């Protein structure tokens, strides 16, 4: 990976958009009826605008803290929370679409919301994607054991500022 990759694409992938939309909608629709989905602004998932996430008031806290966080100017929600390979991106959106809609509708999720290990892995891959140059030394070193580097162990406030 070179430095040039440290500016990630912030637009939706150009190819295969329709398929992606279908995947994401499908995921969300498993959680909600199509109409409800629309009313709850379920299409938020297809946008990269952070405001899309806050359409769901449950994401308000993260939105507010992200605005105060150190990355506000550098990274949006999806820069961190969605994989940047094409398939991963839409599979994740589908999965999240399903879980978020279901959680929101049935109010049956764990509060406070805690990031899932699989989602955290995605986030950390994104840290490395942007910061390859900075962390290449110890990341390479870790890969010897095939483990991923736990950036959030130390930088837990990177996305949302200090927890407290």
């Amino acid at each position, binding site marked *: 990976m070179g430095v040039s990759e440290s500016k990630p694409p912030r637009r939706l992938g150009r190819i295969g958009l329709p398929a992606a939309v279908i995947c994401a909608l499908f995921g969300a629709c498993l959680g*909600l*009826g199509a*109409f*409800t989905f629309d*009313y*709850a602004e379920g299409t938020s998932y297809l946008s990269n605008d952070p405001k899309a996430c806050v359409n769901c*008031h449950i994401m308000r806290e993260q939105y507010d803290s992200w605005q105060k966080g150190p990355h506000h100017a550098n990274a949006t929600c999806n820069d961190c929370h969605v994989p940047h390979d094409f398939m991963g991106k839409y599979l994740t959106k589908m999965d999240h679409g399903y879980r978020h809609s279901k959680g*929101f*509708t049935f109010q049956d999720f*764990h*509060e*406070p919301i*805690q*990031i899932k290990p699989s989602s955290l892995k995605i986030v950390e891959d994104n840290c490395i994607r942007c910061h390859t140059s900075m962390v290449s030394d110890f990341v390479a070193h870790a890969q010897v054991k095939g483990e991923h580097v736990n950036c959030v162990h130390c930088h*837990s406030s990177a996305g949302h500022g200090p*927890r*407290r």
Partner: protein
Amino acid sequence: ALQQNIATRKREAAATVFQIVGIDESTEDPALWGKNFPKQHDGYIRTVDIERTRHGGSEAYQKLDADVRWRDIFAGYAFSIDYREERGHAYMLSDQRETERVTQRPQPGACLHCHSSNVVAFRQKGIDLGARGTLKDPLLSAAGQEQLHKGFEAICAMPYSEATKLVSHPVTCLDCHDPSSMALRISKPGFLNGIRVLAASDDPVPHLPSVERWRKGDRAKPYDPNADASRQEMRSMTCAQCHVEYYFKGDQKLLTYPWHRGLKMEQIEKYYDAAEYKDWTHAISGAPVLKAQHPEFELWSQGIHARSGVSCADCHMPYKREGAVKISDHHIRSPLLNVARSCQVCHNYTESEIKARVAVIQDRTADLMDRGTDAVNQLIRVIAEAKKAGVSDDDLKQPRELQRKAQWRLDFVAAENSMGFHAPQEAARILGEAIDYARQGETAVAKLRAK
């Protein structure tokens, strides 16, 4: 239905402004406040619930039966008759009226300061005794304050049996909230006096920044939490109105918080020593001993949470989402019964992991406390034996002083209700000292016997 659900949530999110009707400075009945704030009221009334945790919870079992060694430690004092695990706020007034400490021993009206809603009772008494103004004056006005303090002083000195007729509710909304704005405010004179003398002392209190700030100022006016404290500090001071060490000063039984030198265990001891104060003379050993009482605020003050700005309310009244709004959970109880909202907001571990961490801390405290209890008990026994064997009171003065020191320390941690959690290392340090003094006393007695 789903769709409706979302609509409801959107509506809830909009309803954030308070609409306060029909309550004022004399509204004691929580049901009336509840009409304006039904969610907070729902939580408030749930403090009747009974659920036990390993070292806490709300089952009012008899502590003197759970560990009989404490009967001897309290020998000669009301606490040796009846001493229970405390429970929810709903019970505070009835538990006090019914405890054998009250039914079998005379107690002063001062007891009521922390077991009832008494803003109105204090003020009315003050007015009756000639204080300016009426109940319509805001509590924080000069007149309101004059009424409050005057009535408080008078009621402290009354016999409990009479004073208790002046009140009819456990702590209610009015004790913690300003009826016109719902802001927190301090209404208990004992705390207003106590925090004022603390501010005037030089004990560093990095966890109370407004006090530190006041100290750097011109000190023209005494420190006043209602004027000076931040909202985050108020979220602890509200509780520190009652969850503190206290004693009744002089014949007037004036409820007093012994913070004149600072909040630490040793500083409080020094205050009592200098005042030559004792709570009672130990019935078995003859030592002039002190009783510690629920120093939650004092111990919390020495812990890392206080230092990090984490308030009582953060853990004991965590925010709770009700639809789209967040409210403070007024069901005040052990946070271990509500780990998700109390702890997981800040600590990103599983519930079982968090409970395990608390268990490690509490078990270590309990372990040392067990040693301390043994040590103090043995000291009491050997002093009594020495007395019987004819050792003079003069010779026994030092061992008895050592018992006073040891017992004060042991009881400080035992009477505190978090089993060391509020400040784990400090609790262990205090217990280490308790053991040191108690065992030194034993050696001293053994040496006397060898003479």
